[in-house]
């Protein structure tokens, strides 16, 4: 009698779990990339990640001084970004294209929040004006780096602008 009840309970439990199993809803944790994550730990605190296959851009640093860090995931090493980071600027958001050539950065500088586009090969920084005027916050870059999606605050309303990058 007890065995029959136990079997019935087991069947009912399996019936409840089956849809979860079929739909793939069970939690699975992917494998952490140990070596890379240890490298990232060495940066100090880090936030605002942007992945583009070979490249990972983050904002990180120690002692309250933060900068944009671009990590080459194949070599698991940060690469230099000459002309991008400056001590009086606070980066807020970053995006990178799949070639690692273009980075879009939202930063605070001299009390203003601005969006800039950095071209690594040229070591050149170009401001991207908000039109109509607004305050940029989060950004996303298309894989080829030719289009930007920007979250902009205008008159207390958050909007999204799409900007073609020449």
């Amino acid at each position: 009698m007890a065995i029959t009840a136990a079997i019935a309970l087991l069947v009912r439990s399996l019936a409840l779990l089956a849809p979860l199993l079929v739909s793939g809803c069970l939690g699975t944790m992917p494998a952490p990339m140990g070596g890379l994550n240890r490298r990232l730990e060495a940066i100090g605190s880090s936030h605002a990640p942007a992945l583009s296959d070979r490249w990972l851009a983050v904002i990180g640093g120690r002692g309250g001084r933060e900068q944009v860090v671009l990590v080459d995931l194949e070599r698991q090493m940060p690469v230099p970004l000459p002309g991008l980071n400056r001590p009086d600027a606070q980066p807020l958001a970053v995006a990178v294209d799949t070639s690692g050539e273009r980075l879009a950065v939202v930063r605070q500088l001299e009390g203003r929040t601005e969006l800039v586009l950095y071209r690594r090969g040229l070591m050149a920084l170009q401001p991207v004006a908000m039109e109509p005027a607004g305050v940029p916050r989060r950004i996303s870059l298309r894989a080829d780096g030719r289009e930007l999606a920007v979250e902009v605050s205008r008159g207390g309303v958050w909007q999204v602008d799409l900007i073609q990058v020449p």
Partner: protein
Amino acid sequence: MRGAFVAAILTAFVCSGCGSWSWGRRSAGPAGLGASNRQDPALSGDGSVLASVVERGGRDTLLLQEQPSGRELPLRSLRRFQPHRSPSLSWNGRYVAVLIQQGNRRLAVIEDRANGKLLRFPLPGDQEVERLSLAPSGRRLALEVVHNGINRVEVFDLANQLEPDLPAGVRSGGGAPAATGR
């Protein structure tokens, strides 16, 4: 040699903001009924899909739109578990990674739009996920995790979880894209 040097200087000059390159701009357009704020934009690798978070019924809800038409694309599992935040898309928009709320926990999930399957990535109880970013190929996921008050980015390998979402003409074995973007 000298010509190339002059060209490089000129290019850098133009990029410094003194040039007259035109930047095409447009608003992502209306976000649907009753929605005023639109936040957290994310473009798919090829730019054909835009994800953003809009207010629907007072709850931050993921919105997927085909570009440039603005046509809303359906989601299956992600129509619930609001508030949503920090969406990220794979190359063709097949995979949508986003943070959802489940009970008192925030959770990173990925919906496979090809079959509606939802992959969940639970973290240990003493860690909270703040932001995420999915690689365009779908091969890696970066999570910003808060542990003991410190924010730290960690990268995870999804090779055993997802089949790659690559540009047309690229095999999963590797190689450069036949055409990047539009």
